[in-house]
């Protein structure tokens, strides 16, 4: 065992193995997104994986200095509600572990054992500035299992750092996810009312279980509709310790979810919220945050007829905490595109720093994980951008995760370098 550990260390496979290095990022425009605000020109000192200091000028010696003059420094992006590490090729079912079909498991489903930190999606999105991700299972409504699903809970979420290490799960049991609206309706037999009823029944049974655990476990109780494993998994949700993520787009569906949250004292998070702007005041009053696709302005279904570009701006203005996910076509492989979406949200009225927070700070805050700000003592997930981080022509030049500089090489750059000048012959097969 000891030899094995040494081998792991030699291979650099242990996160934190190289934490001792101190790094000084000098002279960049620093968006701390914390109490320290924005420094037009500032230095960030990183030690032992943490941010140690942020100031206009730091003269402390460091093992390594990163020249960020003319660059922009931000916390790393955090992807909300991705399936990173649980999928490789969407249409190749053997590579997908984010969803199960059948009735046997719902809220108890914990996809963590399936997490693959060596997924090619991880270095790719890291190279685009994503340092952490919240990972949730989902329910697949296409392919072989489609139509056989008769539940509305997808299971539990966790969080990862995108360093590719085997121990890169940084937070577990982050919450539960369930479906309302059209998708919920489809899963619950044809009416969104039944999706709502299913969630409510599960919560009610979880409460019943909480109050009568011993009797239920002894079998001295009425037959419940959920497995004990599911009811156990829901305990932190009904006790307000874990959030419940609910998908809802139509304004009236969102209000139903708010009602449920009030009745069961839930920490609710709305995913989707295409018509969130129509009930922004209610969301704000209930302190319920949203995770949205900020470029989804299509009336793509009858539940999102009110989809519009200024959804994020309007909700923010009303006081709602907004997180921005990758676009519908890039919710996992292209989670980094949340950055482009955030830039679009700025065009449509979301204040600039709020847009930055929507892809960093707010995600961390909503899910209760580290990161998303640069502040002394906080985790050193840092990106040095070539320019304005919300601009499509900017890109990361340096990415630190837990204080460690990351490789920005990925299959996109490898294939580019091999085929920069495609030509006839066999030699390209020997270019690595």
């Amino acid at each position, binding site marked *: 065992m000891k030899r094995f550990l040494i081998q792991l260390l030699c291979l650099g496979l242990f996160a934190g193995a190289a934490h001792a290095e101190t790094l000084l990022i000098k002279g960049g425009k620093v968006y701390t997104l914390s109490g320290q605000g924005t420094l037009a020109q500032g230095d960030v000192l990183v030690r032992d994986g943490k941010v140690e200091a942020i100031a206009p000028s730091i003269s402390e010696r460091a093992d390594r200095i990163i020249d960020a003059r003319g660059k922009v420094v931000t916390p790393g992006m955090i992807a909300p509600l991705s399936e990173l590490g649980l999928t490789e090729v969407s249409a190749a079912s053997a590579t997908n572990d984010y969803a199960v079909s059948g009735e046997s498991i719902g809220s108890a489903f914990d996809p963590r054992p399936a997490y693959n930190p060596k997924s090619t999606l991880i270095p790719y999105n890291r190279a685009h500035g994503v340092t952490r991700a919240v990972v949730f299972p989902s329910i*697949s409504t296409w392919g072989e299992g489609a139509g056989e699903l008769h539940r509305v809970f997808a299971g539990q979420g966790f969080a990862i750092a995108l360093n590719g290490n085997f121990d890169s799960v940084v937070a577990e049991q982050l919450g539960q996810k369930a479906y309302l609206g059209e998708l919920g309706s489809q899963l619950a037999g044809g009416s969104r009312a039944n999706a709502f009823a299913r969630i409510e029944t599960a919560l009610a049974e979880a409460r019943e279980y909480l109050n009568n655990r011993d009797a239920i476990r002894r079998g001295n109780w009425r037959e419940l509709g959920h497995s004990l494993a599911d009811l156990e998994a829901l305990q932190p949700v009904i006790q307000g310790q874990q959030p419940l993520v609910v998908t809802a787009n139509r304004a009236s569906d969102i209000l139903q979810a708010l009602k449920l949250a009030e009745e069961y004292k839930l920490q609710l998070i709305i995913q989707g919220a295409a018509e969130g702007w129509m009930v922004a005041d209610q969301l704000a009053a209930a302190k319920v945050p949203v995770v949205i696709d900020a470029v989804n302005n299509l009336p793509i279904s009858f539940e999102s007829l*009110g989809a519009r570009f200024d959804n994020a701006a309007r909700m923010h203005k009303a006081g709602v905490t907004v997180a921005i996910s990758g676009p519908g*076509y890039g919710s996992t492989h292209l989670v980094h595109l949340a950055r482009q979406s955030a830039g679009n949200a700025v065009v449509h009225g979301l204040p600039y720093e709020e847009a930055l927070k929507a892809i960093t700070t707010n995600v961390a805050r909503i899910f209760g994980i580290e990161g998303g700000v640069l502040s002394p003592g906080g985790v050193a997930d840092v990106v040095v951008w070539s320019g304005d981080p919300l601009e499509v022509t900017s890109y990361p030049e340096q990415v630190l995760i837990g204080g460690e500089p990351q490789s920005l090489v990925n299959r996109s750059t490898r294939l580019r370098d091999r085929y920069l000048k495609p030509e006839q012959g066999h030699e390209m097969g020997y270019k690595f």
Partner: protein
Amino acid sequence: MQFRVLCRGGLLSLRGMAATVCAALLLAGCGGDDAAGKKDGPDFARLDAFPSTYSIEQSRPVLISGATLLTGTGEKLENTDLLLKDGKIARIDDGIKAPRDALVVDGKGKWVTPGIVDVHSHLGNYPAPAIESSQDGNEMTAPNTAEVWTEHSVWTQDPQFPLALAGGVTTLQILPGSANLFGGRSVTLKNVPGRRVQDMKFPGAPYGLKMACGENPKRVYGGKGQAPSTRMGNVAGYRKAWIAAQDYKEKWEKYAAEGGEEPERNLELETLAGVLNGDILVHNHCYRGEEMAVMMDISREFGFQISTFHHAVEAYKVADLLAKNNVCAAMWADWWGFKHEAFDMTEANIAIVDQAGACAMIHSDSAVGIQHLNEETAKAMVSAQRAGFDIGPEHAVTWMTLNPAKALGIADRTGSLEKGKMADVVVWSGNPFSVYSQAEKVFIDGELMYDRDNPARQPRSDFELGIIEAEGERL
């Protein structure tokens, strides 16, 4: 969220938004600029069956003064005036005097490009809302449905058309989906409101034939226990069809030359024969480099030209072959991973194809992406620069304007700011290759079809009226 991912990019999903496809025939350059020209011999293209009724009513002159022009011909002209007159680009110069009655647009600080051309769209045939009864993009009932014409599926009231207009898209090709080896005919539209699809049809634009390589046809039909179930089955299917088309074409040519008994018309073979005689352009959905190379050999075997490979995620691997064979590639900036054939993505794809001398372009295949083609082009431009290529906005703009126009065989009429061309023009709030820039004014044939500053000049489809509030507007 995979179900959403899969709605696009060539996969068939529950919502039935199939994917896509493509390839076209090139006659000259990378596209068939004269493909619709009159020829002797049988009329396989049948341009007059559902003739375009497109027209532009007004032609008040428009002077855009002192803007930065990306001409689409490789030039960036600063502080330059652009005059639109009688629906055409009339003059590009300094100090143009506004004609009487002209609409004068102060172009100071603004950038101007040709109208964006999207070579790959499903607006109208996969409309929003995406309910089952309106998913009319793919006749998934046989591997060869060359007989269907997608214009017969287009719902002109799709609310996605005006959204694309606000993104600067003036011309778009609507394609059938990609489940079939031969998916049917495409149609090229001007992005204007219309009661009927004929009101939107780009006058004189050649038809396209959608073909599809790879996973989709073999999955859809193989899954039903019929051919094709493999990529080699796909190829056998193409070749059999072209043999039949050759025979059909010869019969009709013989009849045209010698008379006798009129052969029986066959809609499927008529479309394929239209490809063989150069009137219909092949738009070929094809992800893999190997398959593109095979398709180019098939085109040589049967004597036709492929216009464009669409969703050409691996075009960079065969970029030199594309250049040699005069075939365009339509690509995304960064989409990948939704299927195995989309796994080998590089963000330098467009750059490498371009630098190899082939005609490269961005495309959307998405009602979201079509609203941001300037941003998508910007990402591809930066990837080019990061790969070490010297490519700036004046060149990158061709990826969303002139090159897709070439692929559609309409580059002699639109796609660049050149005297005499259609006045399809976008005035941007700034450099279009910035996330912060927006199309402020969009002109089609010289008419102001979209004005960001004037809600009264922003079209809305029938569907949108009273849809949220009976008396209110959706947007």
